[in-house]
């Protein structure tokens, strides 16, 4: 054995979890919501998924090749998630080139230009979504033509609104139960069926892929603020209903699947709480006082930017000391 002894640093045993397992776990967790979206919006959206995922994976391969990294990394699932998540935050009416351009932008610019998985500052799918918003403002707005199929009850003759959060033209607001199941709720492809998203989210929490603090504090902050912050006189009735806010739009998918993206969120528990509360504050402010009905995507992208700073300021307390960084001036 002498001439083939392996010399490596301790520890000599490693936990079985790997990046690949974590990533594919997220794909599994997204699957129920993706399946529901196909039910609601028809097989047309399957095309969006396929294009988006294929473009993301192809771009991943090209970038890996270009950067001289092992091509096998394209199988780690991270590009797959990016493609899948991007499709889920696009409007059902988005033309195919939107998903194509978005996926290429997400993987090539947001991820690989910054150094690949682990080095990106923003969540690739969300950053691509925001990019598309500016690049194709008309195509990317939720149109009134995509009427979701009903789970129960009778569909409206004509779709009356583009999003449950739309400030104008809203007729009768949806019931909480409708919102929870996505019954007749218009919106982005993958964001409407909250039950399916919650199911996946809880799975990720149980599997310890996701820190429960982020969804809890994110959603909790939105709930409390939309409840407490005064709504304007001309605001629709639902504006003061915190449940309606929590169950509408992209908050659930954002809180469970995007604000929890490991790469772009703080590493410490307390840092994550700061991060999540920052996201919640932004969503509440944008929805209440901003001109834009949503706000989830912007809030997460904005807080992603602060992640390195949060990691610097909010560190754990070092054992045997009072301050997090007792060694500051020791060098």
């Amino acid at each position, binding site marked *: 054995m002498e001439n083939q002894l392996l010399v490596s640093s301790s520890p000599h045993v490693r936990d079985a979890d790997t990046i690949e397992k974590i990533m594919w776990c997220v794909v599994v967790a997204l699957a129920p919501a993706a399946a529901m979206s196909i039910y609601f919006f028809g097989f047309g959206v399957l095309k969006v998924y396929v294009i988006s995922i294929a473009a993301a994976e192809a771009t991943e391969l090209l970038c890996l090749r270009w950067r001289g990294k092992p091509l096998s990394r394209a199988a780690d699932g991270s590009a797959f998630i990016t493609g899948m998540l991007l499709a889920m935050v696009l409007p059902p009416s988005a033309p195919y080139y939107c998903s194509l351009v978005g996926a290429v932008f997400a993987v090539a610019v947001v991820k690989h230009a910054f150094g690949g998985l682990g080095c990106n500052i923003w969540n690739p799918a969300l950053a691509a979504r925001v990019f598309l918003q500016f690049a194709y403002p008309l195509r990317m707005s939720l149109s009134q033509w995509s009427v979701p199929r009903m789970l129960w009850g009778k569909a409206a003759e004509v779709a009356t609104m583009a999003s449950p959060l739309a400030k104008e033209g809203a007729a009768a607001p949806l019931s909480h139960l409708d919102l929870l199941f996505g019954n007749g709720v218009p919106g982005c492809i993958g964001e409407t069926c909250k039950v399916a998203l919650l199911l996946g989210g809880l799975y990720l929490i149980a599997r310890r892929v996701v820190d429960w603090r982020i969804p809890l504090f994110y959603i909790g902050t939105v709930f409390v603020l939309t409840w407490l912050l005064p709504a304007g006189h001309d605001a629709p009735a639902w504006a003061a209903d915190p449940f309606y806010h929590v169950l509408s739009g992209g908050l659930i998918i954002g809180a469970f699947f995007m604000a929890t993206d490991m790469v772009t969120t703080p590493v410490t528990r307390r840092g994550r709480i700061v991060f999540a509360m920052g996201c919640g504050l932004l969503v509440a402010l944008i929805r209440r006082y901003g001109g834009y009905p949503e706000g989830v995507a912007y809030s997460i992208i904005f807080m992603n930017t602060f992640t390195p700073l949060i990691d610097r300021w909010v560190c*754990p307390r070092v054992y045997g*000391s009072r301050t997090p960084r007792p060694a500051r001036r020791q060098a």
Partner: protein
Amino acid sequence: MAKTMTFPVGGVHPEEGKDRTSGLPIRVSEPPGEVAVLMAQHIGAPARPVVKKKDRVRKGQLVGEAQGFISANVHAPVSGAVKAVEERIYSVTGRRVPAVIIENDGQERWARGLNEPQDVESMEPARMVELVHECGVVGLGGATFPSHVKLSPPAETPIADVFVNGAECEPCATVDHRLMLEHTDDVVDGLKLIMRIVKAPNGYVGIERNKPDAIEAFRKALADEASIRVVALQVKYPQGAEQQLITAVTGREVPSQGGLPGDVGCLVHNVATTLAVRDAIRFRRPLVERALTVTGDGIENAGNFVERVGTSVAGILERQGLREGANQLILGGPMMGIAQGTADVPLVKGNNALLVLRGARIPPQRDCIHCGRCVEHCPLGLMPAELSIACEKQDWDAAVELNMLECKECGCCAYVCPAKRRIVHMIKFGKAELRLRKARAREGS
């Protein structure tokens, strides 16, 4: 049953791997034909050889003399003739250090005055410490810190709580478990002697819950002992690290930046060390042998053995048999043990386990994905992700600011890392570099 105690922050649960050897009684091995006794096998100054080639030595005779207070004597583990004084590899650092090579004459004759019962009842604490010093006792859990130093606490920090550390949290190691079962009363005796030396009112025996028979044995042995408590500890690595044990039981934290257990009134010795301290005081028996676990999936016949210090590791492997595909030799356990480049190293006082793994490989490393698991599991509240990156960049200011010097290299961070980052590797590298730079700076000035 009393409530199980543990430390509050971090820790991991690696596979225990103890079943194979925990039921096997300790066997005393045949002494080898030749031993190589290293002069530097403890923390502190290396000992100076006091014998030369062709000298005849008796068992227990001093062959290396401690240099200064933080240093330790080394003794001849066998009787025989000094064959040479030459360099051998020290398995902990991988460096060559002077060693006394002794050919065993098989006589097993102790040097005069050693290995004889001492009059302990009337003995002064100072004399006890002197005996511990004389007998070359060091921390046998792997730290190899000279025990007489620990037993001489400064007057400003009196010791209130003395611990026997029987946690044995390192996977695969079972020797402390066996010692606790086979020498329960001796361990208690050793603990009482230590309490007497430092005049401490409270004693504790801390044992992880996965050794219920040992807990039971001590509960029985200590049934009418008011000053000593048996503490059942939760099974969690690194429960047996000095700091974690103290915090688990007392709630106190050893101060950072070089604080010692004594600063919070505590003193910890592991099971084997407690026994060695007892042997030194009761019998004036120098530390010339130790018990260790030999195991791992690359070993044919695993077990717990008493071996002489200086025995060739290659010889032990040959005796126990290697399996096909064995490719990693580790002295110590899987979490903190040190992989060897050669089996041609002599056993030292600090070796508590000898592990041979089959089909070991270094998992490919990826960029950190900020999952935060290392931060969550670090028992010391460090940020291993950033720390390893600072070391990788050789940004020493940042590394020190991130408390690199606090790290105990327990391995929890690298164990949990899904990106398989070599965090501990980088931290070890960083510490070594920093030491080198400081030494150079001293020389330069």
